[in-house]
């Protein structure tokens, strides 16, 4: 399954790929435009784009010469939603654990 959560996370693990996605959030861009701010080769950028494409985070245009890249936010939304829900569960769990520990320790000292 090319677009599951693990693939999304793996694609997001690299700072250059995150920077590329941030750039694409502002609109479509060609490989040349994406490579400009980075001190890495076009080939390296192309490799990053392949990873993002496999994770369904971007699509490439059909124009053989330019193949503009476009953001596909759905997998990211899914990942963000899952993380947000999961983090909230643990935060609330910690809150209750904290409260419970206070109550136990109050009982001990009285």
């Amino acid at each position, binding site marked *: 399954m090319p677009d599951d*959560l*693990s693939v999304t*996370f*793996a694609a*997001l693990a690299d700072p250059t790929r*995150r920077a590329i996605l941030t750039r694409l959030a502002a609109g479509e861009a060609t490989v040349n435009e994406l490579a400009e701010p980075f001190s890495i080769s076009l080939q390296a950028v192309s490799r990053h784009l392949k990873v993002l494409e496999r994770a369904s985070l971007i699509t490439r245009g059909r124009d053989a010469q330019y193949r503009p890249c476009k953001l596909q936010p759905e997998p990211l939304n*899914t990942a963000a939603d899952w993380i947000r829900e999961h983090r909230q569960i643990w935060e609330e769990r910690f809150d209750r*654990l*904290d409260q*419970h520990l206070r109550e136990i320790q109050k009982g001990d000292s009285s």
Partner: protein
Amino acid sequence: MTSELTFTRDFDAPRELIFKVFLDPDHFVKFWGPAGTHTAPDSVIIEPWAGGRFENTMVSNADGSAYDFRATFLAIDEPTSFSWRETQSGMTSQTTLVDLGEGRTRLVIHQSDVPEGYRSPEAQAGFMTSLDRFAAYLADL
């Protein structure tokens, strides 16, 4: 940012106490269930050894619907760490208790092997979130 998640909190309690509270069913039910649920006391099975069961059922206060949590302990090292793997998703959680001195403890939950193919139907319903939200999310990474 990888397929791993970490949750950290410092507590005003010694780590021996936190270790005991986390793995004692009577204490466990006081904090485990997410908001709006309770963890049925007689559903809690905690066998604190490698290969032991770690199971409970969280019940919705609103409609009584139940969610079964099923996991197996991978390792227990009192009072510094324990870990479990959830049966269905395969997600692994490593819990570490760090003694901060003066009776304070840092609890770190490190989760890895985040479930493959985890996709909520709601998230797949096709809503397109604004690019602002997307950018904010990236900024948080």
